């Protein structure tokens, strides 16, 4: 009897994670714990980083085979929502119900700043190619510069799914660091006089305009870049539901319960892709470096175009709102507000900056559509 007992105990011990764990899995578990620390204690985009980090933890538990690539496991099936491009558009649906496009409608020229900030995506694409990534991989890395998590995940799932974990972690970490990354670039590229510019109050926007806006944007974007239809379409559907005022229940569900459910599933699925062999590679370090370059370029070009618009409008536009063209809503707009108030405490740029900020969401979705159109045929 004792022999059977000891042999059973030995069998359990030999098959346990303690006996089977490898060095790289141990490192990944530590990385997961670090990300959990950043999410919980430092509050780096916790809504997504926490499930991503925990998905990473689960994916690297030895012997459990609970990751996005283990057919038959829970996370394999949950991951299908990412792989098939389902979760990110649903997140955009929820975002649409929470977004006010009024400042953008009131000042459509903000679209230019939203477009300018996306230049960072394409310049980072060039940098990634130079560092040896394939074109689809480079496109996925470049999209980090759009500062839009769902768009980055949507694009990467189509172009370079093996880089999904690293790109998602980089994208969400840098989004949390927008208040740190942007201000030095904004101050470097603007003069004190420019930062002090007080902008005129925005005109009122009618309900009719707010209802027509999502329909028009969907049609225009989808006709020109069909690959962006699912992202932009869902974003605009959410917004139309909100602005119509006739489907309050749906808006409530989309902005709360549905958004939360999809966020959990998306986060844990993305985390489940970060197995040691996919994450602990020199490519991950390059992605981390390229990610911050992408953010920097996006901010810089947004501000530079803001300066051009300031000159063209004879000083009516504060260039600081250009940095809000990266689609980290509303963080980037708040950074513009804060930097404006540093120079002039009576300056309120927040609503002016919200225009380029939400324009950036549309711009990054369009950029993603273009990259998918050009690079998807090259996916091996």
């Amino acid at each position: 009897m004792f022999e059977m007992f000891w042999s059973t105990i030995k069998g359990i011990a030999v098959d346990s994670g303690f006996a089977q764990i490898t060095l790289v899995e141990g490192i990944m578990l530590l990385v997961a714990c670090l990300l959990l620390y950043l999410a919980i204690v430092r509050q780096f985009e916790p809504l997504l980083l926490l499930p991503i980090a925990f998905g990473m933890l689960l994916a690297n538990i030895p012997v459990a085979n609970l990751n996005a690539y283990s057919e038959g496991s829970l996370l394999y099936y949950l991951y299908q929502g990412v792989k098939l491009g389902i979760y990110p558009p649903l997140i955009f649906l929820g975002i649409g119900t929470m977004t006010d496009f009024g400042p953008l409608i009131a000042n459509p020229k903000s679209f230019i700043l939203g477009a300018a900030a996306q230049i960072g995506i394409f310049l980072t694409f060039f940098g990634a190619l130079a560092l040896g990534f394939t074109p689809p991989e480079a496109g996925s890395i470049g999209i980090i510069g759009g500062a839009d998590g769902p768009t980055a995940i949507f694009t990467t799932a189509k172009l370079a799914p093996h880089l999904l974990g690293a790109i998602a972690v980089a994208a969400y970490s840098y989004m949390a660091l927008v208040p740190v990354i942007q201000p030095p670039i904004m101050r470097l590229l603007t003069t004190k006089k420019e930062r002090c510019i007080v902008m005129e109050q925005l005109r009122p926007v009618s309900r009719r305009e707010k209802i027509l806006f999502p329909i028009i944007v969907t049609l225009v974007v989808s006709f020109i870049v069909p690959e962006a239809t699912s992202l932009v379409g869902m974003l605009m559907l959410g917004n139309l539901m909100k602005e119509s005022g006739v489907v309050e229940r749906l808006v409530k569900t989309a902005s709360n319960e549905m958004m939360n459910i999809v966020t959990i599933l998306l986060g844990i699925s993305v985390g489940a892709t970060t197995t040691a062999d996919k994450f602990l590679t020199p490519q991950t370090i390059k992605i981390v470096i390229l990610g911050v370059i992408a953010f920097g370029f996006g901010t810089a070009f947004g501000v530079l175009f803001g300066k051009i618009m300031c000159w063209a409008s004879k000083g009516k536009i504060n260039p600081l709102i250009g940095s809000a063209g990266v689609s980290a809503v509303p963080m980037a707009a708040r950074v513009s507000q804060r930097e404006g108030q540093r120079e002039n405490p009576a300056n309120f740029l927040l609503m002016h900056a919200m225009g380029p900020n939400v324009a950036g969401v549309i711009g990054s979705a369009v950029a993603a559509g273009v990259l998918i159109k050009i690079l998807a045929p090259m996916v091996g």
Partner: protein
Amino acid sequence: MDLIFALSVIFTGVVIVFIVLIVLIGVMMLLGKFSGVPSGGKPSDGEKNAPPAAVSAPAPKAPPQLAVQSGIRGEVVAAIAAAVSALTGGSGKPVSIRRTSGKAPTGARSAWSLAGLHENTQPF
């Protein structure tokens, strides 16, 4: 790295993003014009019936500065301003508030309590 390919992707991507967003600028400006509220302009007669959508400001505009004698508490100023507004149907606004007697009231009573006491005893 295929430089020509890289540059063509960059050029194509940037141009298409700008084209799409410039088209949207044009469409939104036209929409604003037909809605009677052109960009940067004032509402025209065509939009009289449409309820104006409130564009929330980050902070309310500061009201015209009211000259308040030092020592008068904020709640007293608020009560007086509200009373003036109520009496004048919303059109009147106090310009300055000062104490008629020399010293500020001291003691355990709060400003509200003193105001109530004053109101109740005024007829006498």
